[in-house]
């Protein structure tokens, strides 16, 4: 067995820290990728079986992802799952798939745990089997180390006490050995033996203390280095105005990304037709919402983007900028900017906006939103409280002015709709599509590898769609959320706005 030398050099440096176990190490980085919503929700087809998939990537990597799959077909008998990279050499050979366990209480629910061994752009390939034969579904899973776990206080105290005990035992054992082990049977140690014993114990204690002290110092720097190199951060984004009504967005270089040039990749690829999806949301009221698509103005690495601003009121704006890497790995960059009242160009292409009332924290969730053409969007949500951490299929229906299901919905950027979920304090932001929270670009990368059912993606831009659109997602935590649901209706993008209250 042969491994590269570099690997080992990195590994051997870890060894010194073994003596310091309980003393240190207690880093906790509450940083979440994708703005507070790392879990993956996906609604797709494995051959004939429709599956609602939830994957919770581990916070520390390598680690174990939890997976939940709910099938809609009662004939579904078994599901196996296997994680692989989407691109590169690691995407060729799948390891042995793991069978998911069927719930005893709910025969349509399957759960399992899958090992994610590195940060990067992964897929979880699901192999379903049942009365209608086999089928395969691949779900993109961007995985990134978000934090290290602190040692539990009880375990730390226990290990520290054990370390003290072992050190004390070793010192006295070596002292006893040097005092008595060389004596003939029955012979009593003399003064010289005792002096030698004290000397040995002193030297041993000094040596162990030096090892512990030096190792502790070394470990601090090593732990900091690990946190710097392993913990994911999206690239920094610097927004500015150029004086001509243009918003400039300059991305900063990211070593985390460039160190993973294959499994993450630094080059950007279009996600449903655009290199960047920019969301400008006035804060804290979330009353002005702009979904824009800047052009790349500097193609160097890192690149820069420019967006001609539409007319908008002055205010403090939160920026969320979605991009996708060549591996299918998504980043959501965040920034803030104060903008003056702007008289800008009319919106064109896929750009859209809505100016509405401020978010109103309330125990009751809205279920109806009026659209700009007088029609209505209705959230098919009963009185059941919304709970954090639970996969939900958010379903919205559009009725025309007369209360009848709309017949003039069209695909918006190739899909039935787009939804943005925003927490009141802006600590959670998710840009979700009918297929789920994954990037469409990652799905497109998987298409040649696995044939999977994605009916809405195949819609032609001018084709009329059904009056309903649904989004699989789950609130990561309790709080007050605002949901922006966008559809294209009779050639115009309409945005329904809903406020939701979520409990634990």
């Amino acid at each position, binding site marked *: *067995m*042969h*491994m*590269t*030398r570099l*690997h*080992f050099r990195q*590994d*051997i440096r*870890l*060894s010194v*820290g*073994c*003596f310091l*176990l309980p003393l240190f*190490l207690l880093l906790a980085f509450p940083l979440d990728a994708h703005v507070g919503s790392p879990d993956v929700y996906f609604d797709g087809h494995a051959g004939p079986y429709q599956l609602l998939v939830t994957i919770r990537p581990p916070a*520390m*990597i*390598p*680690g174990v992802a939890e997976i939940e799959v709910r099938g809609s077909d009662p004939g579904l008998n078994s599901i196996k799952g*296997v*994680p*692989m*990279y989407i691109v*590169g*050499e*690691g995407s*060729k*050979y*799948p*390891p*042995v798939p*793991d069978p998911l366990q069927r719930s005893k209480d709910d025969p349509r629910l399957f759960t399992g745990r899958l*090992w994610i*061994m*590195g940060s990067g752009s992964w897929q979880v390939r699901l192999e379903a089997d049942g009365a209608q034969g086999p089928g395969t579904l691949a779900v993109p899973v961007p995985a990134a*180390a978000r934090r*290290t*776990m*602190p*040692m539990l206080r009880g*375990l730390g105290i*226990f*290990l520290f006490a*054990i370390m003290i005990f*072992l050190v004390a*035992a070793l010192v*006295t*054992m070596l002292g*006893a*050995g040097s*005092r*008595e*082990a*060389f*004596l*003939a*049977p*029955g012979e009593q140690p003399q003064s010289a033996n005792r002096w030698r014993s004290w000397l040995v114990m002193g030297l041993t204690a000094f040596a162990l203390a030096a090892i512990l002290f030096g190792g502790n110092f070394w470990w601090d720097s090593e732990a900091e280095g*690990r946190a710097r190199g392993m913990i994911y951060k999206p690239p920094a984004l610097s927004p500015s105005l150029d004086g001509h009504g243009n918003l400039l967005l300059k991305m900063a270089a990211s070593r985390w990304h460039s160190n993973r040039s294959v499994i993450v990749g630094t080059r950007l690829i279009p996600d449903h037709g655009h290199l960047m999806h920019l969301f400008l949301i006035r804060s804290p009221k979330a009353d002005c919402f702009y979904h824009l698509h800047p052009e790349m103005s500097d193609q160097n690495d890192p690149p820069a983007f420019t967006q001609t601003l539409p007319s908008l009121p002055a205010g403090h704006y939160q920026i969320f900028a979605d991009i996708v890497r060549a591996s299918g790995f998504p980043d959501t960059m965040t920034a803030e900017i104060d903008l003056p009242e702007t008289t800008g160009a009319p919106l064109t292409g896929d750009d859209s906006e809505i100016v509405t009332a401020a978010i109103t924290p309330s125990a009751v969730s809205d279920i109806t939103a009026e659209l700009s053409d007088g029609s209505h969007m209705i959230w098919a949500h009963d009185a059941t409280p919304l709970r954090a951490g639970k996969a939900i299929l958010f379903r919205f229906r559009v009725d025309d002015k007369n209360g009848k299901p709309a017949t003039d919905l069209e695909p918006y950027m190739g899909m039935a709709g787009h939804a943005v979920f925003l927490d009141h304090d802006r600590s959670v932001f998710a840009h979700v599509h009918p297929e789920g929270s994954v990037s469409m670009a990652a799905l497109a990368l998987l298409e040649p590898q696995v044939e999977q059912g994605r009916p809405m993606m195949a819609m032609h831009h001018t084709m009329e769609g059904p009056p309903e659109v649904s989004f699989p997602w789950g609130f990561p935590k309790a709080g007050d959320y605002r949901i922006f649901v966008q559809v294209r209706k009779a050639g115009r993008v309409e945005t329904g706005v809903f406020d939701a209250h979520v409990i634990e």
Partner: protein
Amino acid sequence: MSHTAPIPAPSSGPVPWPLLAGAIAISSIIFGLYWDISWHTTIGRDTFWTPAHLAIQFGAVLAGISCGFLILTTTFGGNSAARDVAVKVWGFRGPFGAFLAAWGGATMLISAPFDNWWHDSFGLDVQIVSPPHMVLATGIFFVGIGTLVMMAGPKNRAEGATRVAMERLFIYIAGLLLTLYLILLSEFTDPANMHGGTFYRVLCYGTPLLLMAFSRGSMLKWGATKAALLYFALMLAGLWIFPFFPAEPKLGPVYTRVTHMVPLAFPLLMFAPALAIDWLTARMADGNKWLLSLIAGISFLLVCMAVQWPFADFMVSTHARNHIFGMNNFPYMQPPSTYHFAWEFQGESLTAFWKDLGIGAAAAFVSARFGLACGDWLRRLRR
């Protein structure tokens, strides 16, 4: 003096049970360790309850229990003969080696919850040398050293067939300790590194110590050579037998398609420098110890270079990519695009090379001197 206690070996008769228990413990540990590394590079996934882990922890428990029992019976058993050949630690009495081995077993067991926490916090094992593994390795070394030390006193007093049996057991445990140490170095000792200074520098740190201690402490003419040959045979057995067991990865990403257990690499030719050390210690047995250590250390380095350097030329060639030499074995996580690193020598500046050799020569001298002292202690041990 004749003894009836469990540990003080009679001048004739069977080898005392605590020594056999120690030998079984260290055997189980080393076998489990080899299996575990192979498991990680073939199957990838593990829990605490893999057979390999159980073999390792069985050794820890066996060493801990047998030595603990020995200490307790010596302390409270009222056997004055046993107490006469015991040392006293915190009021307990027992053979010096029993305390060391028990300490090693306890340290090994303590590494388990630490390793578990390490997995939860920093992820699963993708490396041999991780902090919890080093705690484990420290414990393993002490189990082995404790057993050697426990054996030294009775062996030094035994005669006839008993002494021969105990000398064999001594060499057996010495060979296992050498195996453990060289396995820990294995990621430095690829053939691709054998034309570089780092390989020789790293070898010079601890190997001369072990070989000198075995050569001197065994009181046999070819003690170090026999231990090195045992290491060579064990590693060859692993290399040749493990691939007969089918297995496949259960973790991704899989870069190399693996269909059988991946063994560790072809062993180092340590019997050659061991032979030189045995010859020198015999020739200069009564000479100046510093001079002996200097000559033995330098000889170790030179003989290593004389055998490993040309052997590496063969190992990186296509002729070694077969079942016998194992140069076509790669772990599942190794991309094929990096195979060539195993088959070509690593570049290094001449300055760095000579600097490594200089440090290696100095380290070999110090290591040999310390090993000589350890060997002398083993010879003089009575308890």
